[in-house]
């Protein structure tokens, strides 16, 4: 039997609602040290699995803390555990300066995700570099075609990212291994700026017919919580 604490989020001093539960229905407990609270649940022989149910359980707890409006929070990465309450307190002590700085960075802001699927095949009329490839041999044409599409997609991605990052406190191109035609980014946006941001996404959607833009959020600041930010 191995007792562990599963970790959901760090808050600037407030705990979970009384009686609230988390992963596998375990009761939530806030562990406070020096003004920071780690929201946890106790488990025995826990094997957190990245299946849909566990992912949503983690997210539900983080969101409930985020939604209280009591202050800033830092979500933990999914699957993070420590051996017990003493280890949680030690972590809160050891990393307090770093986590306080991160809480300051995200306070008063929310995370918005933007994904754009860029349809490069729909745009050759607008791209002379792609059209020219018809004169070359089939192998070369294919390579030039791919290069042209990559350039075109990068151009569209830039024209989406530039105006949105201006509205954000911070931005991050988050995800690895994306195909060139998929643009993904996260933006840390002041709560009061959210309507402006949404209007800008709508304007971009209307002005860029070759890109299907999806904006999701408000998310807790997952992409802006760590020192390992992208």
């Amino acid at each position, binding site marked *: 039997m*191995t007792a*562990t604490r599963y*970790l959901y989020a*760090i808050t600037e001093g407030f705990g979970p609602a009384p009686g609230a539960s988390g992963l596998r229905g375990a009761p939530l407990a806030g562990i406070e040290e020096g003004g920071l609270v780690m929201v946890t649940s106790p488990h025995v022989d*826990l*094997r*957190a*699995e*990245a*299946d*849909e149910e566990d*992912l*949503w359980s983690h*997210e539900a707890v983080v969101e409930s803390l985020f939604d209280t*409006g009591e202050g800033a929070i*830092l*979500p*933990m*990465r999914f*699957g*993070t*555990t*420590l*051996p017990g309450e003493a280890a949680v307190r030690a*972590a809160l002590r050891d990393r307090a300066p770093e*986590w306080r700085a*991160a809480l300051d960075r995200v306070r008063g802001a*929310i*995370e918005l*995700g933007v*994904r754009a*699927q860029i*349809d490069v095949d*729909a745009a050759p*009329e607008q791209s002379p570099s792609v059209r020219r490839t018809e004169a070359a041999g089939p192998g070369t044409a294919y390579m030039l075609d791919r290069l042209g599409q990559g350039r075109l997609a990068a151009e569209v991605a830039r024209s989406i990212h530039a105006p949105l990052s201006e509205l954000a406190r911070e931005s991050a191109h*988050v995800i*690895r291994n994306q195909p060139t035609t*998929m643009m*993904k980014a*996260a933006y840390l946006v002041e*709560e*009061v700026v*959210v*309507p402006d941001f*949404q209007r800008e996404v709508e304007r971009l959607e209307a002005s860029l*017919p*070759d890109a*299907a833009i*999806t*904006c*999701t*959020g*408000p*998310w807790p600041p*997952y*992409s802006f*919580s*760590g020192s*390992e930010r*992208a």
Partner: protein
Amino acid sequence: MTTTSLERSRAAREVSLLDLVDRLLDGGVVIHGDITLAVADVDLVYVGLRALVASVETMKREVGMPRLGSAL
């Protein structure tokens, strides 16, 4: 103060498993060291999830294309 605008955007929110996975597995605070969860276990389920995510993306692309074509 901003509750109303936040509620409005939350109502418009499109919750996607893809975005959730990106955030929970790539984002968040990382604690090095005393993690009792075996890394190998995470990697194994991670592979399974990526396959699931790929199918979500394919579905989105298929839904997205006709609208794009007609927009030209």
